[in-house]
């Protein structure tokens, strides 16, 4: 584990995504699901990228998933773990793995969501290994 954790840049927030970031502030990982085709997509959009329907709605994801891949950025001033996590809901999202020894991070390991404040007091979903 890195002795320090890096600071997180603010996300860009727009009218399509502000609900996601509000959810994050409330400790929720929100996803967008399409009522026409039933598929969850990521990142969240007003228009479903699978079937082009605009009948999409927010729901709270389980926050559980597995590491799809990762890379430990050792050359950074404060090293960190870049990762893709496949959520139980079936979509894979970019994230960082935190609170975990670098040596313990492996593809396929179970992870759960947690949240970090960003530089401008927004909130960012990140993941840690399940105990």
């Amino acid at each position, binding site marked *: 584990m890195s002795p320090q954790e890096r600071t997180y840049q603010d996300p860009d927030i*727009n009218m399509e995504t502000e609900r996601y970031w509000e959810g994050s502030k409330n400790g929720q990982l929100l996803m967008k699901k399409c009522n026409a085709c039933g598929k969850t997509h*990521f990142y969240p959009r007003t228009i479903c990228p699978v079937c082009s329907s605009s009948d999409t709605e927010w729901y709270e994801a389980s926050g559980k998933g597995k590491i799809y*891949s990762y890379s430990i950025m050792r050359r950074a001033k404060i090293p960190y773990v870049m990762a893709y996590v496949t959520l139980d809901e079936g979509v*894979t999202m*970019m994230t960082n793995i935190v609170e975990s020894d670098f040596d313990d991070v492996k593809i396929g390991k179970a992870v759960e969501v947690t949240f970090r404040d*960003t530089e401008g007091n927004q909130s960012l979903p990140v993941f840690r290994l399940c105990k």
Partner: protein
Amino acid sequence: MSRMSKAYIAGIYEHPTRKAVDKTIPQLHAEVAIGALKDAGLTKDDVDGYFCDGDAPGLGGMSMAEYMGLNITYTDTTETGGSSYVVHVGHAVEAIAAGKCNVALITLAGRPRAEGLTTLGARDRGGELPERGFEIPYAPVITNMYGMAAMRHMYEYGTTSEQLAWIKVAASHHAQHNEHALLRDVVTVEDVVNSPMISDPLHRLDCCVISDGGGALIVVSPEIAKSLGDRCVKVLGHGEAVKHLNGGRFDLTYTGAAKSGPIAFAEANLKPADMDYASIYDSFTITVLETIEDLGFCEKGQGGKFVSDGNLISGVGKLPFNTDGGGLCNNHPSNRGGMTKVIEAVRQLRGEAHPKVQVPDCTLALAHGTGGQISTRTGAGTVILGRNDA
């Protein structure tokens, strides 16, 4: 037999600089354009089509056309990152076949070294990028993004760091003969795997160089090619593709080459085994390994075995690749390696590669470009080229 070709590559030029502190980007564009036109035996007044990437100064190609004094009736500024120039070749061929232009100039120039670019900065293009909020806060940089592709490939197929290292070893064997190459020392598998870890599992020597400069290509109609002689090279096939994160359902073990390659081979009516030489985009060793599989030079997952034991070294292996030293050792101008991929393939087909790396009787060759990032959004471009008598 003589294969049909809708257009020919008549001129090539790779800028010899690798650090351009004393030149502007427009000046570099003009220098490479003049170099390629001279190589073709043409002048700027012959050019009626101009192609550049979205990184060129100005709106599309207009400012560069003005700077260079071009009078054009056709322009295309398709932007697919480092693969743009391979895609431009395909688009130039189609434009020429449609009678829209006769002499197409394609240029690339940039100076990331002079401007102090490092590999640690996040690639942030700002603006209205819809994915930006969901990526930039996690600090994606080029090395950790390619690192994730390599990690997944290793997980699924048992690919090893030693196998990836062979790709750099092969590039270094070629670069030793290139007086302009940034890295000319021959390296071993041990050198690569013992170099500092940048972002697991990629070591420093798994990465390409950062360099300034650029290059240019001239694509001409068959009639003009006939008047210019037998150094003109046939464009036999072209394919392109965009691969992205697909709403959160994706696989990092393949690239856009899985689509662009078959399209190009089908148009050329050729197969991977027909290729005497291949220029494969090499931003990182993993880029080469995945692309070789995707293009069909071996089965998916067998890339590690395929690249080992010098199989990519000219005169040693079955698939001589990047005989200029590639982006891994020679040159990766403006962080966009597609241009130099086409240039070295043309040198091979003309018999003008360095004698130590020239493939004997090189008749058919492939050049492939990979743009953007294989772990997010990537543009692929493949061209199949043939010697004048192919």
